[in-house]
């Protein structure tokens, strides 16, 4: 049947992939199929966002580890032979994409940030970051289907503008996964959206203790910004939630103003702030790499500089 296929276990990401997939399907002159774990009613709303066909994975009551569906998805792909298969690079999605690609014996562009059909040869050109973000690599895939996993937020959600009709097909339920979920701990999201913020204050390991973060908070308030951080701050120290980690393994931000405080500016972080209009930094080490990627830097101790900045802003 060929076509472009998308998969995500999350509705929001399905909409993003519908947007990416729609463009590809148009330039290839083919159909767009969405695969998801939604209930069929919700899944039917995907037609109005651009899906031509919708495939639904049935709910698993016993042991809902998503990887149980790998054989079902692989069987369906083998049967229908899509040209392109895009998955959302959520944490689950990245594992799923790699495992599906292995079973299908095909290539996968992991964490793909741009893709397009080449006008001359019709090949799918996919881009991704390498070397922590220092390099950009473009690849094509010589086997079928060409697969890519796409980080959440890379594309805008597809708007609802189609006629919204089609057939929802439910796929068979698989046997449970060998990986058994014995407990789930959900976190409460703070709901700040630093990906859309106009001013972002970045917090790094230059802060000595968690209590000191109030300094960043006050500066954020004075500048009307939101707080983000480096990976060690969220993943190792747990001072701030994972959703505000900026960089290769976190978010890409694109504010008018980014201010990095006590951040060394290693490439994996710097790559996440690249789209900022103006970049500032406060670091006491004049050789910190952050200064090479900043427009305006203050070489100094953040404990000395931040109060001065706040005072000057209040004047």
């Amino acid at each position, binding site marked *: 049947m060929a076509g472009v296929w998308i998969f995500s276990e999350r509705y929001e990401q399905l909409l993003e992939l519908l947007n990416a997939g729609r463009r590809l399907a148009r330039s290839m002159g083919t159909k767009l199929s969405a695969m998801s774990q939604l209930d069929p009613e919700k899944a039917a709303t995907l037609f109005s966002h651009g899906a031509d066909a919708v495939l639904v994975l049935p709910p698993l009551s016993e042991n809902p580890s998503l990887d149980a569906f790998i054989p079902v998805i692989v069987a369906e792909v083998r049967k229908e032979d899509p040209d392109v298969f895009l998955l959302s690079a959520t944490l689950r999605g990245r594992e799923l994409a790699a*495992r599906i690609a292995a079973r299908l014996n095909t290539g996968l562009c992991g964490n793909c940030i741009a893709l397009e059909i080449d006008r001359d040869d019709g090949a799918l050109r996919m881009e991704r970051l390498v070397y*922590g973000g220092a390099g950009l690599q473009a690849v094509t895939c010589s086997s079928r289907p060409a697969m890519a996993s796409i980080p959440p937020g890379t594309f805008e959600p597809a708007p609802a503008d189609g006629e919204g009709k089609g057939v929802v097909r439910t796929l068979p339920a698989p046997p449970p996964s060998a990986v058994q979920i014995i407990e789930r701990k959900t976190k409460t999201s703070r709901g700040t959206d630093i990906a859309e913020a106009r001013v972002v204050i970045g917090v790094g390991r230059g802060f000595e203790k968690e209590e000191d973060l109030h300094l960043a908070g006050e500066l954020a308030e004075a500048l009307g910004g939101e707080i983000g951080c480096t990976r060690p701050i969220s993943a190792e120290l747990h001072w701030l939630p994972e959703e505000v980690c900026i960089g290769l393994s976190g978010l890409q931000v694109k504010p008018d103003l980014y201010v990095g405080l006590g951040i060394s500016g290693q490439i994996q972080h710097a790559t996440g702030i690249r789209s900022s209009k103006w970049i500032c930094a406060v670091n006491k080490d004049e050789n910190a790499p952050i200064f090479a990627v900043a427009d305006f830097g203050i070489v100094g101790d953040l404990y000395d500089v931040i109060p*001065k900045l706040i005072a000057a802003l209040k004047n």
Partner: protein
Amino acid sequence: MPEMIACFKWVIDEAYIRRGPEGELDLSSVNYKISEYDRNAIEEAVRLREAHGGSVIPVTVAAPEAAKGVKDALSRGGDRAFFIADEAFHDLEPSQTAAVLAEVIRSRIPHDLILCGEGSGDLYAQQVGPRLAEHLEIPCISFVQKLSIEQGRLIAERKVEEGLEVVAAPLPALVTVLPDINVPRIPGVKDTLAAAKKPFVTVKRDELSGKYEAHLATLLVRATQMERQCERFGTQPEDVARFLESLRKKGAIGQKGG
């Protein structure tokens, strides 16, 4: 007593990468290192050995120059290592690396648990671990931040979008670990000396039977540009005022603060 394999990659230290005059990547004066998160994988295997006995076997697929990396992995606590080395293994894509690892592990290395990093420092494809698990047909648990073996089963805490899942899986299994799982020890002189005496097996390309063809063709690799103004300021009140004035002039902040 669990036999544990820690898969590690010998990668370019990205801090040494420069942008060349034509926007190309300048790799002329780079150093190499064990990929950051693979140190966590090795450390976790060593930690489990301390609790349960067994052995830790670091394995890498690399060009012959990576022999230094094998010594490094052994100095971090590996008992013996497998060095799958060939000139042809310079620039493998994740599907090839996983297939090569699978052949060697299946035919030569007994294993109860395979540990990989969450992603490699150079490609960060996050594929080799899950692909390897598929080739070996064993359970895969990704993005693990806490791990234990209880009554012959693996208990792992994995990170998912909504928070955490505590999962159980039978052995053998494969996990990919997050950097939060432990703090890797830094090998001392004694460890380095001990590593020099530890055994490792070198496996060559012609000892393998697979074809290992690539699926992806690289069209281009270029440096990501970051041209910035790079102005520096001091910390005196007048410096701070000038700094803010520059931001105002650019319209980055309003006349009154934000």
